[in-house]
């Protein structure tokens, strides 16, 4: 198989795959930084932009990726994986995504390495740029901050999807066939973010629930540390510099030939040069989420769970590994044991109440931002029930009947002087003239069947099912005009603007303005006042109850 490929092509192909892997990691991690990424196009090739794409190289990420690869390339059974996880300020963590760069055995012998493979890898990187903004973790990562942070981890070897929970979904970014195999880039992402939002609604104390599968021993404990995907700087980290690349940084001078197109000359020049100063102006925090060891990244597995996952007991575990780690090459990565994650966490809020508020913000954001997950319907329903119930509890269930004089509406042939309605159908029924006889008269309309409207205000505003009947009867002599108020549509839900306007167009006549009472003289009015006051005083409790319901 490999003899078909000449040595130059083979070398080029290996280089392309290596730098493709590095750029893939950069794109993924940068997409989870929580910021918008912007790079400039340049009409003149700079020579250092692999695949003709302006993708910045974060030195730490390149470093980690190279460590993970350890000089190897993705091959059959050896995949490069980038794990994205979320860690809360309380130490709970959850895997969100696993991005896998795999190679399978299906070869495409016909393809030209220096031309087609290169261009297709470039296209695949563009696809990766697009897909990284589309998975649920993107919206989460844009909102990371005090409540939680996003971490990344790179490993090489077998893909480990156990931490993604049940029912994770996979999206394939793309494939590129090469003479030595087919490169596949895909992402498996968690959709079961529901635990974060539903647990919030269940709990009373502001303690985040523990992830159920968190304590399950992983068959393949992670062998690499987690790193935060953010740029919150800390002063003490400015002194950190990463060694320039151990091997020569190869400059990619893309020079293609068009004569004829099938013969392509691809020149790659090798040049040593210092790793340029980090393009990113902020300095990276040096992460090591609770782990003090570096690692030999190979397929060997460690015997304990990393403390990065925030498992309390594991902080004290793996002493042997800690000891081993202390000898590694990155002393600046040592963290004080037990310190949470090395991630930029807000200091623990003093009051649980405040914490609850933050958590609440977090979890209420989650359903809307993680809109791709199944949690959305249930959480939005929860929100709805909460809001409905808060409205519904507002008023007493008493049905009051009253008589009042209704103002005659337009286009009426026959005036209606009196209309009796249940209080549920008219607005402000409580404020109608209570001094008039409160006799049980048969209501002209049926009380509303549905929905369970308990406030007079709300009751009156329910159209169709509830007041549809009532408005039909009371307005028998009214000509129904199709009333379309501005900025409103036909009734889809109750409490529509049109209905509201209709109802309030015909307020009850003030009793003091009615003809009968107006015929009385002023003196008689004044005389009857004490009696009226006495009646009102008797009913003061009911008035108070009504006022309370309005609050």
């Amino acid at each position, binding site marked *: 198989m490999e003899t078909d490929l000449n040595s130059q092509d083979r070398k080029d192909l290996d280089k392309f795959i290596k730098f493709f892997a590095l750029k893939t990691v950069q794109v993924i991690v940068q997409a989870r930084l929580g910021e918008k990424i912007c*790079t400039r*196009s340049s009409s003149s*090739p700079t020579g250092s932009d692999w695949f003709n794409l302006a993708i910045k190289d974060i030195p730490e990420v390149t470093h980690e990726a190279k460590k993970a690869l350890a000089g190897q390339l993705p091959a059959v059974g050896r995949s490069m994986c980038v794990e994205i996880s979320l860690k809360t300020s309380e130490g709970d963590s959850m895997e969100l995504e696993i991005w896998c760069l795999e190679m399978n055995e299906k070869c495409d012998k016909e393809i030209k390495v220096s031309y087609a493979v290169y261009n297709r890898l470039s296209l695949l990187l563009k696809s990766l740029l697009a897909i990284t903004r589309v998975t649920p973790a993107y919206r989460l990562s844009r909102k990371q901050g005090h409540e939680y942070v996003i971490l990344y981890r790179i490993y090489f070897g077998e893909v480990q999807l156990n931490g993604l929970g049940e029912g994770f979904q996979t999206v394939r970014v793309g494939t590129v066939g090469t003479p030595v195999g087919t490169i596949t880039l895909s992402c498996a992402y968690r959709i079961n973010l529901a635990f974060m939002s539903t647990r919030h609604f269940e709990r009373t104390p502001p303690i985040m629930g523990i992830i159920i599968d968190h304590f399950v021993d992983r068959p393949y404990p992670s062998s690499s540390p987690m790193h935060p995907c953010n740029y919150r700087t800390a002063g003490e980290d400015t002194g950190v510099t990463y060694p320039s690349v151990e091997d020569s940084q190869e400059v990619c001078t893309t020079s293609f030939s068009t004569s004829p197109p099938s013969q392509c*000359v691809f020149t790659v020049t090798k040049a040593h040069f210092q790793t340029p100063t980090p393009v990113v102006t902020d300095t990276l925090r040096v992460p090591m989420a609770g782990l003090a060891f570096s690692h030999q990244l190979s397929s060997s597995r460690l015997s304990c769970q990393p403390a990065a996952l925030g498992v309390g007991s594991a902080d004290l575990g793996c002493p042997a590994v800690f000891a081993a780690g202390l000898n590694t090459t990155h002393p600046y990565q040592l963290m004080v044991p037990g310190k949470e994650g090395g991630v930029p966490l807000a200091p623990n809020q003093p009051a649980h109440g405040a914490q609850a508020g933050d958590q609440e913000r977090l979890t209420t954001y989650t359903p*809307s931002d993680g809109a791709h997950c199944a949690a959305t319907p249930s959480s939005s329903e929860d929100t709805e029930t909460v809001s409905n119930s808060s409205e519904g509890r507002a008023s007493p269930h008493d049905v009051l009947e009253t008589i009042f004089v209704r103002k005659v509406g337009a286009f009426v042939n026959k005036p209606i002087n009196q209309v009796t309605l249940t209080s549920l159908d008219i607005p402000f029924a409580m404020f109608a003239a209570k001094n008039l006889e409160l006799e049980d008269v048969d209501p002209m309309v049926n009380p509303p069947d549905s929905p369970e409207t308990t406030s007079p205000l709300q009751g009156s505003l329910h159209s169709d099912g509830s007041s549809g009947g009532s408005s039909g009867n009371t307005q028998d002599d009214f000509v129904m005009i199709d009333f379309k108020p501005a900025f*409103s549509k036909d009734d889809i839900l109750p409490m529509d603007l049109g209905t509201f306007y209709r109802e309030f167009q015909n307020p009850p006549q003030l009793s003091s303005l009615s003809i009968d009472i107006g015929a009385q003289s002023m003196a008689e009015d004044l005389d009857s006042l004490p009696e009226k006051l006495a009646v009102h005083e008797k009913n003061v409790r009911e008035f108070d109850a009504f006022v309370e319901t309005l609050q």
Partner: protein
Amino acid sequence: MNCRSEVLEVSVEGRQVEEAMLAVLHTVLLHRSTGKFHYKKEGTYSIGTVGTQDVDCDFIDFTYVRVSSEELDRALRKVVGEFRDALRNSGSDGLGQMSLEFYQKKKSRWPFSDECIPWEVWTVKVHVVALATEQERQICREKVGEKLCEKITNIVEVMNRHEYLPKMPTQSEVDNVFDTGLRDVQPYLYKISFQITDALGSSVTTTMRRLIKDTLAL
């Protein structure tokens, strides 16, 4: 050679039309743009660098990636704006579609004009819905965001089938394959058109063709 045709459908609120269309069109053009070619002697050429940037939508819970080219963005915004206005003026049903067509020019001898041979057409059908309450709008924000995520995934899937692409041209032929008029990037030759349909599905008002890049001159 047959022209590849892809159709996408979205249902959006009126104010989301622009962003939804831009998201789809920019994603397609991201995949169909290269850096500027610089031809050298001996028939070799080098390719410039394409930058990218994230764009947050205001009316949709969505972020898309576009090529960092202000000229290209302006051109797209112009035609999408026209489409949005046409939709708004057309009536209450709000059905329309935009087509992004990639084509190659084939030089013909005089007196025949150059032929435009499409090799890929992306059609985005838009259905504008009207919403009454703020709650519905909020749900629509999220739902349309999810739908656009699916569309982007569909686009990427098509792109990575690695089906026909025009051959890389020689210097004399480059204008037949690529749009070389932009300063910083070089998309394949494309044209965008749109039409508004009524509820019956027939083209009612006018079929308006807007040629963004028309370098044909007879």
